[in-house]
């Protein structure tokens, strides 16, 4: 076989002229892959069957034959009232997966009347100052019947406490609650920017959540370790998975240090990845990631529960690949990325909306991206068998190569002292920035083509014909007025004593989640609780890498 291939390359292929290709992370891609390229691969131990270790072909034996992935579109609404209305509508149409986007002041632990929040209130999502807002968001929605995903990081434990408090008022026990808090702080320092406290106390909050949820909210996904934002900021597929797993390892080590056993909290960890343009590389990325995670959990942490070794993840198509020029082209980009995502085997998927490079998406654009997912599921037939690209010489070769590269990069970060050290030293930031700069240069030199931007341009853009999402300019005033009324009507003595209990717990080792729960129940605000923590933990000052 190898001899025949050499002959074909030398006698037949060599007659042809073409430019060499490379992967996104810079390795050469051969013009053809054959059985030789995966000759050493042992099917049973290195690929195996779906639903079995090392899960290369998927974490469920029947994947989408039994049940489709969850189609969870990310969307934000400015006010608690609008959120509530939207969720009730979704429930009526049969959707049970809710997603809450919070505005930036909430994500950074500032009340709506904080001077730094000026102009940002209710913009990137809903403003939540106190339990009152959370009660409005979920008014009339039975929390034991839905699963709720919350994109919240630094103050995740406080928002989860509010969710539990709302449930209690409905008579729903915390053990019945299902959902996810993103709760992944390390990537906030490197790329996403909604950090509050320095890394060590911030990671302690995560360990507190692992412990609290293990006892009290056992169906909750305590964390969604996210590579998405690092990829959006510029890193490669290999870096995305390696940096994400390095962060996950740091959280696991914090959980173990807090006295938990690996199988007590690892099964509730989930992940979030970005599905980008390079189709086969993206499919291979997910197959490789499942194997690396399974092996890491079994070999490094001695996990025994199969659930601890299964990589459960949500993916979203690449917002960064969307263009403001000829925005309709994005509909096609999203469709290809969503197809690659599905062939990679996610548990849930969000497809971007085509107008996201112009503004927040309109309702119509969000519906179109949901339809994109439904078309893939109902019409293309790609879900008729499990992992249909398994066995492709190219995809198996890429999978094997990516496994090697991801493991090597994780070891490199281990050698630096782990993800916290690599974040504090700026290594991860610099690597991502370097990739982003290289990409921009390649686009500007036209080495990389972006359709409609540096090739196939047209004079007139259609942006003016596209409906664009509008903000309600009154939200900030309304939210401030609501907060003012709350401060007058609540029991301010109870608030003060709950906040001093938070301070005491933060200064020692006591689990903070029960103290947050007490504080939110007497309507202490997110800003007030975070101010106490800022006082005890200090604030993170961003490392400037340029």
């Amino acid at each position, binding site marked *: 076989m190898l001899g025949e291939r050499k002959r074909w390359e030398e006698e037949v292929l060599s007659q042809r002229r073409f430019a060499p290709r490379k992967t996104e992370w810079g390795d050469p891609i051969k013009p053809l892959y054959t059985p030789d390229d995966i000759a050493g691969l042992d099917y049973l131990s290195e690929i195996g069957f779906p639903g079995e270790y090392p899960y290369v072909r998927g974490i469920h034996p029947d994947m989408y034959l039994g049940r489709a992935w969850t189609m969870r579109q990310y969307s934000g609404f400015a006010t608690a009232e609008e959120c509530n209305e939207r969720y009730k509508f979704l429930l009526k149409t049969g959707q049970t997966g809710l997603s809450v986007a919070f505005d930036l002041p909430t994500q950074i632990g500032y009340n709506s009347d904080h001077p730094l929040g000026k102009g940002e209130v209710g913009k990137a999502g809903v403003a939540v100052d106190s339990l009152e807002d959370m009660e409005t968001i979920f008014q009339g929605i039975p929390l034991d019947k839905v699963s709720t995903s919350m994109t919240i990081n630094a103050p995740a434990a406080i928002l989860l406490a509010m969710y539990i408090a709302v449930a209690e008022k409905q008579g729903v026990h915390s053990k019945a609650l299902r959902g996810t808090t993103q709760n992944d702080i390390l990537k906030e320092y490197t790329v996403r*920017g909604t950090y509050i406290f320095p890394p060590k106390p911030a990671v302690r909050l995560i360990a507190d959540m692992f412990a609290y949820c293990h006892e009290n909210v056992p169906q909750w996904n305590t964390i969604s370790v996210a590579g998405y934002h690092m990829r959006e*900021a510029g890193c490669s597929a290999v870096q995305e998975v390696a940096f994400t797993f390095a962060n996950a390892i740091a959280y696991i080590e914090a959980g173990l240090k807090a006295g938990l056993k690996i199988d007590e909290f690892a099964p509730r960890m989930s992940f979030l990845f970005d599905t980008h343009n390079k189709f086969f590389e993206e499919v291979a990325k997910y197959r490789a990631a499942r194997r690396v995670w399974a092996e890491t959990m079994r070999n490094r942490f001695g996990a025994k529960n199969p659930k601890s070794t299964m990589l459960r993840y949500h993916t979203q198509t690449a917002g960064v690949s969307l263009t403001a020029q000829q925005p309709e082209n994005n509909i096609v980009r999203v469709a290809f990325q969503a197809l690659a995502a599905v062939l990679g085997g996610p548990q849930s998927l969000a497809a971007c909306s085509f107008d996201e490079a112009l503004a927040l998406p309109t309702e119509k654009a969000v519906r179109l991206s949901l339809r994109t997912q439904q078309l893939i599921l109902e019409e293309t037939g790609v879900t008729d068998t499990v992992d249909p690209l398994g066995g492709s010489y190219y995809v198996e070769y890429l999978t094997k190569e990516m496994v090697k590269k991801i493991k090597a990069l994780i070891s490199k970060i281990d050698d630096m002292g782990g993800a916290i050290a690599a974040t504090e030293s700026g290594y991860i930031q610099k690597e991502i920035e370097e990739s982003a*700069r290289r990409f921009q240069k390649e686009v500007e030199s036209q080495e990389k083509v972006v359709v409609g931007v540096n090739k196939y341009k047209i004079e007139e853009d259609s*942006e003016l014909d596209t409906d664009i999402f509008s903000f309600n300019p009154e939200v900030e005033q309304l939210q401030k007025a609501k907060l003012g009324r709350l401060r007058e009507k609540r029991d301010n003595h109870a608030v003060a004593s709950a906040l001093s209990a938070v301070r005491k717990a933060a200064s020692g080792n006591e689990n903070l989640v029960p103290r947050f729960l007490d504080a939110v129940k007497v309507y202490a605000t997110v800003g007030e609780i975070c101010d106490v923590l800022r006082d005890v933990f200090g604030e993170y000052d961003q490392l400037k890498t340029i």
Partner: protein
Amino acid sequence: MERKIRVLAAKPGLDGHDRGIKVLAHALMEAEMEVIYTGLRQTPEQIVNAAIQEDVDVICLSSLSGAHDYLFPEVMNLLKEKEAGNVLVLGGGVIPKRDIPALKEAGIAEVFGPGTSTSDIVLYIKKHVDG
């Protein structure tokens, strides 16, 4: 020796998307400009104070969170108040076209959206600032 063009690259508000501003900052440095990057979470006051202190010719403001409608004009107001209205102020990020007239009215010289080539921004700055 000829004075280099001095640029303040700034992130007003709470938005954390800094890929664009960092890539731009590097491109401006490669084009022989002096660039000072503010880092995240800057109030308009902090940006204007930094611009005056650093004696910059240009401020590049970047926001992707939708808060440009308040933050960019606020920077312009403060610059005028402090008699630094001659600084060239450019905006970038996710900014709908329909918001651009109001920003220009407020004094933002130009708005560069997604897909802009960094070399176009370099050319624009060189053309509008006497080095």
